[in-house]
């Protein structure tokens, strides 16, 4: 099978990997580059668990051909903290009990991060819309929505 060299930035660092034709971004991130933060949930684009940011936009890694991220910027939960300091979303998720089993959390965080970068002061409806592609099976959506709204506030406070 054809193997293609692909170069892209992962959480700010240059990466160069060979990928097999048809390989998806999720496998390349996890098995190829060892970034285990994105998770496999369905492999068919229905659960949002594998959500990562490609050039700032949320994308389902399980349905993204790895070759298509060449030259682009990919962000995962591993790149959310600023050094030792957690992202406001991470703090807010911790304090609002927005993660029970924790499996959908990376995808939720990335979907929310994309929202906050686009809309620093989102309405509740916008938050709901932003995570509408992410399935949570145990925490419940209410604490997650509360955490994202809380994070927006923290982020604005931190910025000011």
């Amino acid at each position, binding site marked *: 099978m054809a193997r293609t060299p692909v170069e892209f930035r992962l959480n700010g660092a240059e990466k160069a990997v060979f990928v097999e034709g*048809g390989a998806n971004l999720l496998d390349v991130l996890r*098995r190829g580059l*060892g970034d*285990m*933060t*994105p*998770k*496999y*949930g*369905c*492999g*068919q684009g*229905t*659960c949002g*668990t594998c959500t990562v940011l490609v050039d700032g936009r949320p994308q389902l890694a399980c349905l993204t051909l790895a070759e298509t991220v060449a030259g682009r910027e990919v962000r*995962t*939960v*591993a790149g*959310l*903290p600023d050094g030792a300091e*957690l992202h406001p*979303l*991470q703090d807010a*998720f*911790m*304090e*609002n*009990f927005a*993660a*029970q*089993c*924790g*499996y*959908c*959390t*990376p995808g939720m*965080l990335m979907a929310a991060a994309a929202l906050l970068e686009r809309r620093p002061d989102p309405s509740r409806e916008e938050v709901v819309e932003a995570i509408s592609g992410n*399935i*949570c*099976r*145990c925490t419940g959506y209410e*604490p997650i929505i509360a955490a994202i709204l809380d994070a927006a506030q923290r982020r604005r406070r931190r910025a000011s």
Partner: protein
Amino acid sequence: MSSQTRVELRKDLFADERDDNLNEIGRPTARQDILGHVTGRSPFFDDHQFDGLLHMRCVRSPHHHARIRRIDIAAAERMPGVRRIILGRDVPHNLNTLLSLIDFGRDDEPLLATGKVSYVGEAVAAVIAETERQARDAVAAVRVDWEVLPHVLDPEEALAPGAPIVNETWPRNVFEYHDKYTHQKLRFGDVERAFARPDVEIVEGRYQMSPIEQAPTETCGAIAAPETNGRYVCHTSTQALFFSLGTTAKLLDMPSSRLHFIGGTVGGGFGGKVDSLHEPLAVLGAILTGAPVKYIWDRAEEMQVGAPRGAERWYLKDAVTRDGRIVARRFRGYFDCGAYTRLSSYAVQKATGHLPGPYTIENVSSDVYCVFTNRTPATAMRGFGITGVDFAIECHMDKVAERVGLDPIELRILNAYRDGDMKAHRRLAKNTALIECCQVAAEKAGWPIRPEFAAMSSLTGGGGDRAAIPETVTDEEGRVDGTPAARPAPRPAAPAPAPAPATASTSARPAAPATRPAAPPATPPAAPPVAPPVSAPAPAAAPAERPQERPAQKPYQPQEPFTRGVKKPGAHRFSSLSGTRRR
């Protein structure tokens, strides 16, 4: 009603340990593992990396019920990347039931089916290849010659005369408790006499609940790898680590001391991760290839093959006086446990112990069956055993309320159990709070109830006559009207997956019966030949399978079948169950 109904919190248990300042609800509480969750570092089983990781996928039945005439793996074995194809005969002890770990029930389920399959998705072979895609391709290249058999998907049809036998270990299509009883029976008072009273209305209902898939976001799976000391490490998504460990030790006929199980981080379970199907196959794969092996369900398998909360069907019949007092309640219930027992036998017991719900009813009768059908085996899920019958009971309460023209909440308060009442299972009720729950719910919902109901309390009015155990009618023979006559199919002396059992599992070890009895064979199994003859893969039966099946690979036999611990006489066979060794 006062604006603040309070549920008094009584405590006769843990009185010294519990403080009364209960105010956790509605307040977020930090989990101890939350930092790992929000940083993506929580170690789910699939987050462990191994060099040279191999991938396992299973060949599955497309039929509800079919005999396996032949499995042809020749083409699949030659496909690129394929390291090994595991069949039922490679599993050292290919018959198990989950609750055998507590000596309950008969072994009735193979890890990989050999003679026949009994539900859609049942695994008959496991392919191990270098990549997942290669494993998928090879799975598609395995040819199975099926002989489709008649199937049954409804529990009551399964109990009817002439229904197909789903699982030969249970020839009547019901789980038999203590090898004798076809169902769980509860008798309290005399319901028939109450039904005949002139002053009662009879309210009947039929309720059923579909199977429900737990659908965890993390699909079930395990990674097993050889360690440096003859042990095998297994990272698993299991909810029941020691259950999975004991099950693996039994199926693979190896001491649990050679298994190093690591779990604890579960990406959603809800009961669906106790069945221990992945760990034994992953460990067997690691044994046979000498390499790390991952066996994970994809989403389609999780939904189709993953054991759901089982379907239930309930028939209720109440006798209720005109003023709303329920004086008799009869249940007939059917748990659809699918093709294998798993945990459904226990669910039936749990349901029976729960009847007639949180109400004080002086006459109660119940018959509940654990029925085998050609559906996906059912297992645990959040309150299983209770949820379905509670749904039936509460729907029925509404129906009764409508019939007698009472407010549904008042009807519940009127019939609620109170402290000191006798329950149908002959224990006194204590710490009851249904009345208060109803009052609070009515208040929160803005649902008006009459003052006398708002003033009632679980603390008063119970006991006395209500603490008495009524004289209970018993029927001769332990059978009651309306229950299906069991077909005259006595339990076979040695229940076995009949259609083609002898190909199963234990080819070179005739001492091991198809069902491992509670008391193991007096003699330890004969040591197997060091190298079984290559050309004689398995003895006896299912001759149709023979000619074609001459694989290059030898069936797996453990080099030294394990005898200590596992086969020790007595009920508890597993040293991995803590505390059993010192009994």
